[in-house]
C-alpha cells in the first residue's frame, strides 16, 4: 500500500536555515544540507526547502544549496519561494530539485502553472495554497505570506490549479500556522476530496496526534511540519511509529 508521507520543512534565508534547528551534535545548525541529511537518516519521506530570501541578489544561493543537497540526500526535494517564471522552475530542477512549489505567482499569473507543467511535467509542479477562514464554511486564498486576501475560494482555486496541470497541492492554514493547535482539518478534507491530485496538509502541528489527524480526518496524502521536528521534540521516526500505531500506512 502507498505510504502516507511525512515531510519536514526548512525555511532557508540566503542559504541559511532560520528558526534554528535543535539537533543534538549538529556541527552547523544553520546548514540546510546537513539538516536535510539528518532528516533523511530519521526516515523523512521528502524534504521541503522554503526560500524566504528577500533580496533578489541573494536568490541564486538556493541553487547551490539544492545542488549540494542533491549530491548527498537521496529522497525527493521540493523547493519553493520566489518562483515567478518558468525559468525559475527550470533552474531549480536542473540544480537537483524534484518538485518546485509556487504560491503568490500562481495566483497572479495562473498561466505559470500551465506553462511550467507543460514544460517540465505535472509531477514537478506543486501549488502552495495559503487558506484562511473568512466566514463559517468559507476559506479564501491569501498571498504574500498571508497579507493579501485574494477573495478567491480555496476549494475553487485548488480545482483550478489541478486543471491547469499542478501535480500536487501544499495546503497551509493561515489560521493555524504557528499555533501548534493542529491542522485545520475541515479545509484540508474539503480540498483533498475536491481534487484528484495529492494534497499535503500544513500549518499548526503541535504533536503527533495532529499529524495522524491530518491523514485520518483531513484525508491528506502527506503531512508537513517544521517546528516539532526542528526543536527535537519528536524525530520523524517517532512520528511514523505513532502514525503506524494509529493504523496509518507509513514507511518505517
Amino acid at each position: 500500500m502507498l505510504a502516507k508521507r511525512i515531510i519536514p520543512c526548512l525555511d532557508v534565508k540566503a542559504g541559511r536555515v532560520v528558526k534554528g534547528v535543535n539537533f543534538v551534535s549538529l556541527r552547523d545548525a544553520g546548514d540546510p544540507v546537513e539538516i536535510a541529511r539528518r532528516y533523511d537518516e530519521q526516515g523523512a519521506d521528502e524534504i521541503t526547502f522554503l526560500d524566504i530570501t528577500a533580496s533578489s541578489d541573494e536568490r541564486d544561493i538556493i541553487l547551490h544549496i539544492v545542488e549540494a543537497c542533491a549530491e548527498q540526500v537521496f529522497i525527493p526535494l521540493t523547493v519553493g519561494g520566489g518562483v515567478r517564471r518558468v525559468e525559475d522552475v527550470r533552474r531549480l530542477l536542473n540544480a537537483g530539485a524534484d518538485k518546485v512549489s509556487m504560491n503568490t505567482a500562481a495566483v497572479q499569473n495562473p498561466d505559470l502553472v500551465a506553462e511550467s507543467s507543460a514544460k517540465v511535467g505535472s509531477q514537478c509542479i506543486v501549488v502552495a495554497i495559503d487558506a484562511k477562514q473568512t466566514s463559517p464554511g468559507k476559506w479564501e486564498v491569501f498571498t504574500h505570506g498571508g497579507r493579501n486576501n485574494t477573495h478567491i475560494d480555496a476549494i475553487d482555486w485548488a480545482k483550478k490549479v489541478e486543471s491547469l496541470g499542478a501535480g500536487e497541492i501544499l495546503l497551509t492554514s493561515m489560521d493555524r500556522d504557528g499555533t501548534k493547535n493542529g491542522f485545520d482539518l475541515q479545509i484540508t478534507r474539503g480540498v483533498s476530496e475536491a481534487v484528484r491530485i495529492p494534497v499535503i496538509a500544513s500549518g499548526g502541528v503541535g504533536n503527533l496526534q495532529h499529524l495522524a489527524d491530518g491523514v485520518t480526518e483531513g484525508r491528506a496524502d502527506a503531512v508537513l511540519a517544521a517546528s516539532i521536528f526542528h526543536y527535537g521534540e519528536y524525530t520523524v521516526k517517532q512520528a511514523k511509529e505513532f502514525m503506524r500505531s494509529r493504523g496509518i500506512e507509513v514507511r518505517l
Partner: protein
Amino acid sequence: MSTVAVVDYGMGNLRSVAKAIEHVAPHAKVLVTADPAQVAAADRVVVPGQGAMPDCMRELNEHGLHDAVIAAAATRPFLGICIGLQMLFEHSEEGDVPGLAVFPGNVRKFPDEAMVGVDGSRLKVPHMGWNEVEQAEPHPMWHGIANGSRFYFVHSYYVEPAQPDVIAGSTVYGIPFTSAVARNNIFAVQFHPEKSAQSGLALLGNFMSWNP
C-alpha cells in the same frame, strides 16, 4: 574502471541519477551524455526519463539516440527508470505513441474506476510516494533488498507486459501493476531508485556490479 552512460535526451534533470550512482560507485566514471558514440562505448547504460512519454520519444529520436538505446538494451547491463521503463514497450496510451518495442506489451493509464483505496477513499493520480515492491523471484538486482521494500514512485501510467515471465516486481495501487521488469541484461523499474533512500541506493549499487 567501469564507465556508465546516463542517457540525456533533454527530459528532466539527470543530475540526481548521476550523483546517486557516484555515491554507490565512487570509482566508476559516470557520463551524463547525449552523444550516441559515448552511449555505444559505455560499459553500462542507464536510461532515465520523466515527464510525458510522447515528449520523451520525440526527444530521444531528435537527439539521434533511438538506435544507441536499442543497441545498449541488446548488449550491455541496462537500467531503465520510470519513462526509461515505459519506452521499452510497444505502445503507450499516453499520447497514443509507439515505444521502442524491446518488450511486447503496452503502457496504460491507471483506470479511474479502480482508483479506490481499502477504506473506500479515492486514490490520487499521479501515484506519488513510497510504495512496496514485491519481488517476483530472486535477481542479482534485488540482492540485499528485502522483499516488499518501499521505493519512491511518481507516475500516472504503468506497463503491462505481454509476457508475464519478464515481470521482476509488482506493486499494488488500486490495481496490481508491474513495477520492475527483467530479461537477460535488462532491468527496468517504474520507481526512482535515485530518490528511494537506502533501498534505491542498494539497487543502483547492485546494477554497478551486475554482470549478466
